[in-house]
Structure formats: structure tokens, C-alpha cells
């Protein structure tokens, strides 16, 4: 049985929205980061769905690039979070307000 394209798009759209909500409403930097990863994975899902629908592999190649990017972003991101935690002993985004006038 072939899964219809609409189902893939709707699922991916839902996952993407959950990711956006997570970024906007969660206060822990790590959780925000996880939500961003969720957004990227929603993108991957849509890519695979479209790739299958159009019957060309462009989308699947794109998925590999997105996955690589996600991995690179996590390594840079966690390094920055560790540096921040060493200096501030917190990962709460509400306390990142040293620069308001």
C-alpha cells in the first residue's frame, strides 16, 4: 500500500509546527535545540515524501545534506552551550538578558 502524499505533508507540517512551538515557548536552551532538530527532521520527512512522489532522487540527496548539517549544528551548538554554562551556571534563556539597555 502506498501512503498518499497528503498524509506525509500533513504529518511533516505538524512535526514542524510542534518544533516551532517548542522554540517559542520552552525556556531551556537544550530543549529549544531539540525542537530545532525536530523542525529539521520534519523537513527530511517531507523531502523523502516529495522525492518518492516525483520519482527523482534529488530530495533524498538533500536529506543527507540536511542530516549532515544537523549533526554539525549540534556539535557547534553544544560547545557554545557548554561554554555558556561554565560562565553562567544556567541554560535558561530568560536569564540571557545582559545586553538590554
Amino acid at each position, binding site marked *: 500500500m502506498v501512503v498518499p502524499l497528503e498524509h506525509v505533508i500533513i504529518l511533516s507540517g505538524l512535526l514542524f509546527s510542534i518544533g516551532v512551538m517548542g522554540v517559542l515557548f520552552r525556556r531551556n536552551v537544550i530543549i529549544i535545540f531539540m525542537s530545532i532538530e525536530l523542525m529539521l527532521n520534519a523537513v527530511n520527512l517531507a523531502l523523502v515524501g516529495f522525492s518518492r512522489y516525483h520519482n527523482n532522487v534529488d530530495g533524498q540527496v538533500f536529506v543527507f545534506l540536511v542530516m549532515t548539517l544537523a549533526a554539525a549544528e549540534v556539535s557547534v*551548538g553544544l560547545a557554545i552551550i557548554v561554554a555558556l554554562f561554565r560562565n553562567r551556571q544556567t541554560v535558561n534563556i530568560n536569564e540571557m538578558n545582559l545586553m538590554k539597555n
Partner: protein
Amino acid sequence: MDLSLYFTRQDLWGILPEIVLLVGALIILSIELFARSQRAAMLGVGILSLVIAGGFASKNFGSSFILFQGMVTLNDYSTFFDLLYMTAGIVTMVISYNYLERKGGETRGEYFALILFATMGMMLMTRGNDLVIIFLGMELLSLSLYVLVGFLRHDVFSNESAIKYLLLGAFATGFFLFGAVLVYGTTGTTNFQHIASAITNNEILSDTLLSLGIGLLLVGFAFKVALVPFHMWSPDVYQGAPTSVTAFLCTAPKAAGFGALLKVFLVAFPALHADWQDLLWALALLTMIVGNISALVQTNVKRMLAFSSVTHAGYLCIGILVLNEMGVSAILFYLLVYSVMNLGAFGIISLLEKEEKGVNFKDYEGLASKHPWLSASLALFMLSLAGFPPTAGFVAKYTLFSSAISEGYIWLIIIAILNTLVSVYYYVRLIVNMYMRTSEETLVPFLHPLLSVVIFILAISIMFFGVLPGWLIDTVTQAARIYT
């Protein structure tokens, strides 16, 4: 395995500048590994590889190639941007000399290597002819910048701006990607020409999804170039980042963002111009006004310049709205002049900065009597940012606004000119502080002959392009013509 199936020799010659930058970055990282104290050598290799890459890139002027089966295009448009990025890279490297040490950090080889990687990423962004390449270039740039912004890892401000830049940058990447996917899904391709022909032949899966995709792409770009209401990250990031990095951050990547945005909308979606015109109009208006009003009340010079760069992004949006050869050439001219002015201004601030001092308006009181040349250059950059004749800033604004008027955007231009008048206040405020107030202790700049020469060249070119803009205008017209 026959590699010629995948790429030819011509493809490799085309990306020679990128290869040079990559090799340069690897050499720098090796020096860092084996001879950590050789900072001058690392700086030298960095500047040298940018100069060599610039030499190879400038050889492409006047010719155009399609490389890697349409993934990358080389033309005067991309070459113009290549040279802009390299100039910004060189100036950034020079003004970084000893800067991190003055701020209690340490200049490591990675710093120069990351600038080279960022330059590579930006070159891919404006050379790319495919959503995948634009995406890869943008991420290479962003990942390098996240690290550069947080480079002072013992400094809480640097940490904080890095985390903000990282989170919002990655968030924006998500939007950009989802937009790219929807465009791919509805047209079945990621190549710009194929997307354009699919749209004109009406071979698209769903109009709604395509519009949604273009909207999300625009949101992604708007985050990257800091258009209101997606600009909230920029003042905090510009303020907290090391000033030498801020100089880079607010010039070359912004040019790259606009270059790629222009390319996507001109090559891939020209048929839909009318659909997103109103949206861009509103973005331009909001960006100008909000950026300007926020800049009025700042006490920190870096933060003021951050909001001023938001305002300039608003002016540049007008050029994208115009979307003809005149508009494109006006944007190219504006981007170059804008980059020179901001590199100069942030360069001087980075020289004056010491520990906590040197970034507030108050610190600049009485500077002119002690350091007349430095103050004169800073004043020149400020006047040019405000758009006074005979500086290049005036010519840039004039060409941009007149291209918009000839397309009938009268009201937008009236508002833009009013905004320019308001902006005079916060630029001149710095000049007043330097020249008309006195203070017992003034800032002591860190002056090195190399730095003075670079600042001098930037100031001279601002005057030169203001008085005799003809040569540059010819160049940008050519760069815009080949492109459209």
C-alpha cells in the same frame, strides 16, 4: 570509476578561488597545530590566500560559465560579490590583529580559518544556482559565524550573543529549509531555471503550497539579513560579539544574504513578482522605521550601529522591490559602499576598545583633540552612513532611491527620505561627542601601521566613490546586466 561523469576540469577551474581558500584554511590549522605562537604567520597566510583567491576570481570578470551541471553559475554578478567578500575578509583579518588579546582572549588559528570558511560559504551563496547549493553555502557561513561570535569564550557577553545567534540562526534555517522543500515538492526540482520554467508552464503541484514555500524562504532570508520583525537577534549579537567579528558580521554576510535573496527571487520566481510585491513593500517600510526609531535611543555605539544596519537593510529592500537592472545595480553599489562604511566604523571602534571602555557614546567625548585623524575618519564614516554629499553614502542612496522612483514607488521613497533625515541625529551625535565635548580621560587607540593604512584606504575610497562614482557605477551596471 570515471569521474568525468560528475565533473569536468572546467568545473574545478571555476571553483579555484574556493579551493585556494580551503587550502589556506588547512595550512593555518596546521600552523596552529605545530607552531601555535606564530600568529603573524597565520594572519599572513590568511590574507595571502584571500588575495590569491581574489586574483583568480577577478579573472572571471566579463565571462560567464555554468558549472557542475547547472548547480553553480559564474558571472559578473557572482564575481562582484566574490571580490566584496574577500575585501571584507582581508579588512576583518587586519583589524583583528591583537584585538582579542586586548579583550582578554587569545587569537587562535581557528579564528582566521573560520573567516576563510565563512568567505567560501558566502561565495557559494551567490554563485549557487540551486536551492541545495544556496542552503549549503548559507550553513557553512552560519556555522563559522556562530563560533566566531562566541570566540571570547570566557566573556559572558560573547557567550550570550553566540547562543542567541545560534538559536535564531538555526531556527531561521528550519524555515528556509521547509520553504525550499515546498518549492522542490511543488515544482519537482531545486534548480532555479527549472523552477522558473515549471512556474511559467504552470506545471506545479499546488499553488498554495508554492506560495507558502516562497513565504517561508523569505522568512528564512529575512532572519539572516535582519529585516523587521525578524531582526531581534541583531542588536544583541552585534553588541556582544568581538568588534572585529561584528565588522565582518554586519557587512559580508549581509551582502551575501541580499545577493542570494535577489538571485532566488530574480531567477527562480520572476513570474510571481506581483504576488510578493506587497509583502516586500511592508517589510521595507517596517524595517526602515523600526530600525531608525530604535537606533535613536541607544547609548552603546555598537548597538546603535546594529540598528542602523537594520535600517540600511530596509533601504536595500526597496531595491529588491524595484527588481530591474537599475534596481539590481543600485543594490550592488549600495552593498559595497555600506560594507566599506561599516568595516571602517567598526574597525575604528575595535581600535579604541579596551576592556569595558570604548563602546559607549560617552567614552568618545573629547576624542578629536587627542586623535584628530582617527576622529576625522570616524566622522567621515558616520556622515557617509547618514548619506551626506559628497560621500559615497549619498551616491548610494541617490541611485537606490531614484531607481525606485522611476518604478513609481513615490510614497515609499518619501518615507525613506524622512527616515534618512531622522537617522542624521544618531550619527551626528557621535561626531558632536568627539568634537564639541571635552573630557579629562580620552580613549587611547591601539595603532599599528597596517591598521592605519587600512582605515586610511577605507576612508579614501568613501570620498573617492562619493566624488567620482563613475567607474564603480559602470562596474555594477555590468554586473547587473550580465545577470538578468
